[in-house]
């Protein structure tokens, strides 16, 4: 009886010792070399795996930074704070990054005329494929939730005008909505600029007024009103150059239809 106990202890204990030694040798010899910085960077990142940086999740991004391939400031949700932390880990000089947010260049919504009844799937892309969708304006927002579903931060919603609007506080400028929008209405703009052309219609004035109350008619009043020469016309549509814009609001005052508006938060208000 005693012998059995002793044998088994010796055999099992011996096996454990030998295998343990073997494992410790192997783990040294075949160790996967990881950069300790990866773990540190990963801890600094927001870990939402949004993919806005262009890498497969935060792990991929952290590895790319550790290798020196990615720009430490490329993390959109992290913003300046994370960029600074990563720069510190990597021993780099942190770059000043301008905070940008998404804006939807349309405020038609319920003010936009309807050209047809649409019965298909509730998706902007699907509706746009089916002969430009139900709205009379081929440039405007279809408000069928594609960007709302695409936003990983829940920053886009429909307002009382049935129009998709971006919540500037939640938006981290990851750019997912820009990718998904079938009509390319969304753009990243500096967060400190308050006046935007909320229209994308390249139609002529008469065609615009017949279908939309708030569409840009290409009258060029804003171009003339702008004291800092920041607005120019592109294919009959006013475009603001944000580098020159001084937030003075002269364009919004001059606009006869309200296509240029004060937009500083979730609410859109006309001046």
């Amino acid at each position, binding site marked *: 009886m005693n012998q059995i106990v002793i044998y088994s202890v010796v055999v099992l204990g011996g096996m454990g010792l030998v295998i343990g030694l073997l494992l410790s040798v192997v783990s040294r010899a075949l160790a996967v070399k990881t950069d300790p910085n990866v773990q540190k960077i990963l801890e600094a990142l927001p870990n939402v795996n949004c*993919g806005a940086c262009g890498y497969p999740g935060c792990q991929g991004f952290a590895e790319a930074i550790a290798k020196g391939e990615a720009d430490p400031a490329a993390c959109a949700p992290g913003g300046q704070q994370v960029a600074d932390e990563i720069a510190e880990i990597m021993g780099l000089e942190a770059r000043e990054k301008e905070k940008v947010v998404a804006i939807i260049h349309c405020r038609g919504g319920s003010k936009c005329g309807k*050209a*047809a009844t*649409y*019965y*298909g*799937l509730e*998706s902007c*892309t*699907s509706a*746009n*494929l*089916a*002969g*430009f*969708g*139900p*709205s*009379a304006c*081929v440039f405007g927002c279809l408000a069928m939730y594609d960007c709302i579903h*695409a936003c990983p931060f829940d920053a886009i919603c429909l307002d009382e005008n049935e129009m998709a609007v971006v919540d500037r506080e939640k938006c981290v400028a990851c750019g997912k909505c820009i*990718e*998904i929008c*079938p009509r390319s209405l969304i753009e990243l703009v500096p967060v400190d600029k308050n006046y935007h052309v909320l229209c994308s219609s*390249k139609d002529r004035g008469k065609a615009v007024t017949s279908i939309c109350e708030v569409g840009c008619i290409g009258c060029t009043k804003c171009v003339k009103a702008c004291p800092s020469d920041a607005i120019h016309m592109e*294919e009959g549509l006013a475009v603001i150059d944000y580098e020159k814009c001084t937030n003075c609001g002269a364009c919004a005052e001059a606009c006869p239809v309200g296509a240029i508006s004060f937009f500083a938060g979730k609410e859109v208000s006309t001046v």
Partner: protein
Amino acid sequence: MFAAVWKAIGMPATKLRSFMGGIHPLKRKELTRERPIEPIPLPGKVVIPLFQPAGKEPRPIVSKGDIVTAGQVIAEPQDGRGVFVHSSVCGKVKKVGRFPFPAGFFVTAAEVEVGEGEKPFPPMERTPEGPEIIEIIRNAGIVGMGGAGFPTHFKLKGAREAGVEFLLVNGAECEPYLTADYRVLMERTEDLISGTKLLLKASGAKRAYVAVESDKKDAYDRLGGMVPDDDVIKPVLLRAKYPQGSEKQLIEAVLKREVPAGGLPADVGVLVQNVSTACAVHDAVAFGKPLIERVVTLSGTPLKRPGNYLVRIGTLIEDLMEAAGPDRDNIGKVIVGGPMMGFSMSRLDVPVARETTGVVLLSRVEAEVEPSHQSCVRCGKCLYVCPMFLPTSEICIAVERGDYALAVKLGLENCMECGSCAYVCPSRRPLVQWIKTAKLFAKKVKK
């Protein structure tokens, strides 16, 4: 016994060739079948799209204010795949810019105000050889006129290099309502034969088959009467079934060859061209006439004079409809292309492109649909009819869930959007719309 009864009730003696899967939708071809091709009066303006589905968009070489004549080159290709684009009318260029296109996006197009100075194209005495024909086809701006609009010269070049055996001239026209190709087969049979011979020469193929569906037997008989039995061109009668006119299904039916997934017909030694394309090739070689007009079926119950009209490329759907006397209050839906694969339009200022086969109008009653769909009941009807043998129901369930990676794995990209599955679905699921959307999303969203 069975064969005797079969013959006695007047059925064709041999079993007609066809493909696996497919459906038998209501054809409604009787509306325009007997209407001869008729030119419509020139519209006030045309919008000539420079779009082509493959390669770079041709670069416009005219600008606002230029005077152009019918057949004058207005855009040059930017790469080997591109074709020349010609003005379809005489007049003045009003704008070169972005215009809406039936498929739901904007393309570069030239708006031309129609003026005077039309000149006929005189016959040309020439007998060009293979590569020369391909060059003529490219200069004439000929693209596949069956619906896809793929540049013909590029297809021919590929076929020549691959050394194809057979040329299939596609006169199946399986889409309901459409009869444009049927009328071309009936009225331009000689030009079709001449065009087919030119295509044979250009592609290097040995034999040509002109495929016609059994509901157009008179066209088959007419063709059979005009080509000698030992000729290189042979008409083939196929069972009338949708989508018989699809390239891969046509090859399967006529030659019993299967094009591999993602492959081209040239991989199995075949080249497929539409009957209208063959006629356009004849026009280009015999008259030096570029592709500036085509036969378009304008059909549907809200029209007083539905028919097959000879239309200049770039004519707006609005102007085209006017020619057939529409009952405007009763229009429920306007579809550019056939009702199975066409695009329903919310605006009528889109142009007739080189690949537009027809415009179908549905009345308000016909256009009524149940606005909602139900969950998939896994009945498997869509699997039974899919001519590409795709697990349609599974793909769409994956798409509905947002799992585009799985959808791609199940063969999303192989779907040709024929709509057979959506036609038979008892839950009225918008299967094709899901697939069309998912094809775009799969590129955008990498999950």
